[in-house]
């Protein structure tokens, strides 16, 4: 009997070891970007549960209704501005910085995670489409959502001598530009705006072969920053984040050349609590909107 049990245990350990080796090698070699995002969301869930136990949460209305911690999903282009908003809010309300945990990813990935139960109380999307998707699934209230920022597009040309405005583009665009980067218009709002602007100027046809698509506006910036692309469309907020030596020439694309990049904020009903409600209200106020404007966005409210 003892012999059979020992044999079973060694067989089970061997099986567990081989499974874990296979799984770990599979994960490390395939789709590391996507898997790391899922691991991050799992880690944030477990750490949230731990913090909750430390608080005196005796309420039975839901996991976090009276807790003072929450997770917030932020579109990656808004990261720098969000950090300033979080700092202002924390100072005002005397919160410890770890009480609001932010996750940054593309709006599509965040929306997909939230629709599968990721514990985010607030979702700051880079567009309206993803937020509307979650509202349609009844994960958030339609009347609660609002436009927290309107994005501005910039054509950044760090190696150029003149401003890459429409006149320069029409005259020199075809022969002077080797590679022009933008975010993927199919799923990135800044990429769509860039494509629309080029079409409005009538330059899309001649520049089409030179276009390079990044997965998001951050990758578009990386292509230009690394020198792989000569110039590219990025967010004005990103351009303001650059060092003065990196900045170089740029053209702020007029808002009438593309449909507005309206970034919508929604609160997820299942995970909202008092602090998240408060932060959500804070984002609509004058002080927060002033910070948003200073970061390079336009305000829809003021």
């Amino acid at each position: 009997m003892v012999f059979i049990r020992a044999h079973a245990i060694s067989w089970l350990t061997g099986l567990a070891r081989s499974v874990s080796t296979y799984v770990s090698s599979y994960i490390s070699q395939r789709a590391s970007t996507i898997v790391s995002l899922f691991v991050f969301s799992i880690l944030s869930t477990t750490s949230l549960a731990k913090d909750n136990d430390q608080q005196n949460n005796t309420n039975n209305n839901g996991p976090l209704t009276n807790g003072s911690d929450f997770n917030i999903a932020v579109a990656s282009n808004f990261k720098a501005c969000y950090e300033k908003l979080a700092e202002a809010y924390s100072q005002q309300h005397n919160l410890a910085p770890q009480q609001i945990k932010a996750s940054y990813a593309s709006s599509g990935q965040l929306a997909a995670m939230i629709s599968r139960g990721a514990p985010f109380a607030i979702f700051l999307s880079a567009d309206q489409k993803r937020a509307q998707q979650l509202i349609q699934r009844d994960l958030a209230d339609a009347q609660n959502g609002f436009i927290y920022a309107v994005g501005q597009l910039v054509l950044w040309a760090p190696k150029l001598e003149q401003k890459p405005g429409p006149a320069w583009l029409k005259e020199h665009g075809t022969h002077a530009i080797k590679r022009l980067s933008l975010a993927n218009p199919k799923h990135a709002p800044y990429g769509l705006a860039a494509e629309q602007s080029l079409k409005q100027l009538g330059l899309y046809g001649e520049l089409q072969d030179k276009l390079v698509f990044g997965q998001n506006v951050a990758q578009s910036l990386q292509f230009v920053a690394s020198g792989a692309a000569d110039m590219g469309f990025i967010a004005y907020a990103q351009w303001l984040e650059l060092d003065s030596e990196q900045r170089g020439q740029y053209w702020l694309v007029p808002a009438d050349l593309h449909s507005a990049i309206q970034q919508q904020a929604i609160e997820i009903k299942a995970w909202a609590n008092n602090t998240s409600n408060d932060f959500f209200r804070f984002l609509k106020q004058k002080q927060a909107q002033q910070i948003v404007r200073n970061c390079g966005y336009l305000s829809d409210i003021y």
Partner: protein
Amino acid sequence: MHAVDLQPLYLSIKLAALTSMLLLVICIPLAWWLVQQKPTRQALINALCALPLVLPPTVIGFYLLLLMSPGGWLGQLNAALGLEPLSFSFRGLVLASMVYSLPFALQPLQSAFSQVNKAYLEAAACMGANAVQRFIYIVLPLARNGIYSALILSFAHTMGEFGVVLMIGGNIDSETRVLSIAIYDHVEALEYTQAALLSTLMLVFSLLILSLLYLSNGRKAHKMGSL
């Protein structure tokens, strides 16, 4: 629903086939040379060649992008040779895939070559065969399983390549938009039906190719009397 574009599938197949062929051409002599080195030198070069195994693909892609850009030395070498720029081109992808799949081609070859019995080579040398003849007529046939494994592994690994292409591809239609990128694009654009279709296609195709390759490998090995 937009129709599913099959161009990424053909591009992936083209990339995987080209990469695995080129890797075989480079890794067969490299593996044979490595196997004959002293252990310390072998260990050092092995460690270098195994780097793509442990580095995240995005890191490989990131550094390759820097190297291939006009300021990096790969980009400058390319410009000096008068060729089209490497970044965001299919040629750049092939180069990156070769770096990424190098250990998958090299290691099976190394283990196959190290199992070749020296007695056969010495006997052939006694009978007058030179080094090249010994390599072509004795080493390669004996290491046939290893060559097939290297081919299969590097092909399969390149078919599934995502992180590196994401960093240096630029997602250009019919040039660098491979299947894994296309599936990811569809998911990002919330087109889950197309993504599922392409994923199933990729799964079926990969299974087919791998079974065919393993079948032919198995049959030939059986003929030689091994297990």
